[in-house]
């Protein structure tokens, strides 16, 4: 499976990473090379095999549905690039 420039552009968009037009051909080439390497997986007979969901056979633990932490607004916002009036601030989302 080879990735064309259009697909590379779409993947970059989905991943929310800006890729300049000029960089798309190299990206498409890189991604194609890696996917080519993955093609080997098609040689394996996986009939009747369940996809692995957990590497150690375990049920995911449950905990009591209670509040265990809180009242740490200042700590939560401490590392924010832009925090105002107790909120994370972002550019306008809805017109």
């Amino acid at each position, binding site marked *: 499976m080879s990735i064309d420039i259009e697909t590379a552009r779409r*993947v970059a968009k989905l*991943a929310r990473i800006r890729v300049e037009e000029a960089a798309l051909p190299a990206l498409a080439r890189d991604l194609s090379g890696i996917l080519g390497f993955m093609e080997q997986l098609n040689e*394996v007979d996986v009939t009747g*095999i369940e996809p692995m969901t957990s*590497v150690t056979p375990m049920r995911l633990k449950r905990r009591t549905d209670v509040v265990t932490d809180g009242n740490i607004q200042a700590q939560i916002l401490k590392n924010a690039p832009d925090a105002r009036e107790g909120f994370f601030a972002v550019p306008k989302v809805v017109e």
Partner: protein
Amino acid sequence: MTDLNQLTIAEARDLLRKRAVTAVDLTMACMTAMDAADGLNAFVHKTPEIALEQARAADARLASGAAPAMCGIPLGIKDLFCTRGVPSQAASRILNGFRPEYESTVTRKLFDAGAVMLGKLNMDEFAMGSSNETSCYGNAVNPWRRANDTTPLTPGGSSGGSAAAVAADLCLGATGTDTGGSIRQPAAFTGIVGIKPTYGRVSRWGIVAFASSLDQAGPMTRTVRDAAIMLGAMAGEDAKDSTSAAIAVPDFEAALTGDIRGKKIGIPREYRMDGMPAEIEKLWADGAAMLKDAGAQIVDISLPHTRYALPAYYVIAPAEASSNLARYDGVRYGHRAKLAQGDGITEMYEKTRAEGFGPEVQRRVMIGTYVLSAGFYDAYYNRARKVRALIKRDFELAFAAGIDAILTPATPSSAFGLGEMADADPVQMYLNDVFTVTVNLAGLPGVAVPAGLDAKGLPLGLQLIGRPWEEGDLLNHAHVLERAAGFVSKPGKWW
């Protein structure tokens, strides 16, 4: 007497408990070595005030009587671990300036045990790399050099700073993390010991996530005994990590009996790769002979799906990474791109991530995005997860047939030169993980043990793979191999 910074953890523990040395003196010796080793670029954030405060507290505790084994032991901490109030940025520009308001479970446990943090260690960005060349801090450098050659070599990756710091005696031990070989490959490249425990043995809470179903933290030390001591302090169930196992942590050091008589060691034929250097082949055969001399039985085994481990890994790990790294969006922490007039939230995400992530991280996030996207999910991601199940079954069948441990080379070569792989395609770099990645896919414990030098004078390591939750038994095998190999070489100091 050896310089204090050259002590093993076990030696230092005994001297500290006898009050023959103080934690402050030990810490000062390490800080002196650390400050003289900036050429290695191993420590990227030094924390001398924290170290001295912790050392003084350790001395008080030691003076008052019973103190845990790690009390007063100076360590380096991989930059992937969140440490409260101290930069923790996974060697990425996107976490520039990030100072966590909380402590990872592993560092908290180590500090509760009295360990001392000297600083944060270099690594590949988000632990994605095998040479420490993807770091936003620049390359970490291997203290080892080829004989009569000053070419700077890679310490391996992703835990390259940890490996360089331990090999150069800047600290007594370091934390590492291993998603596809990131503890074991750098350990092998620098002549030290590194163990990746069973998946679920060590809490992942507070460790910046790369691929959650594969990531495990472990110790990197100069001896197997030290790895046993330090792993004991790092391991254990944690309510904050639902995949951490409710299995008691045994005394790993007590398992080092040196007796492996009657144990069955598997030699997997599929690990004999085409074009494997003769030196690696010989090292492997020598290792098997050493274990045999110690009374173990050597058995040829087959792990038929081995060759599919790397391609399966390079589907699964990027898929998980693309999900985990979605959180870096410039909103809650880290870098946010400067926006142009009229830019909305989508432009903010796209510019922030383009500026913040390096090329290898971008590549993996995009590969992961692709294999998870509609129409390709079954063909790539689900198929890889099925192949992963088969790889795990290969190991289960071997262990069910009575195999106690599996011996393989740790890496396909010794350390290579920094920059030597710059023009290679990404897949060439991925081949570094060929012997280690199966262990992560199967969730097993694996340890790299230094076993010899190659013709260029560089260390080579062997890997032992153990049964799940049997790190003690695995380390006992490693201990026997370490003693038999008698690896005592140290890098000549040039830095």
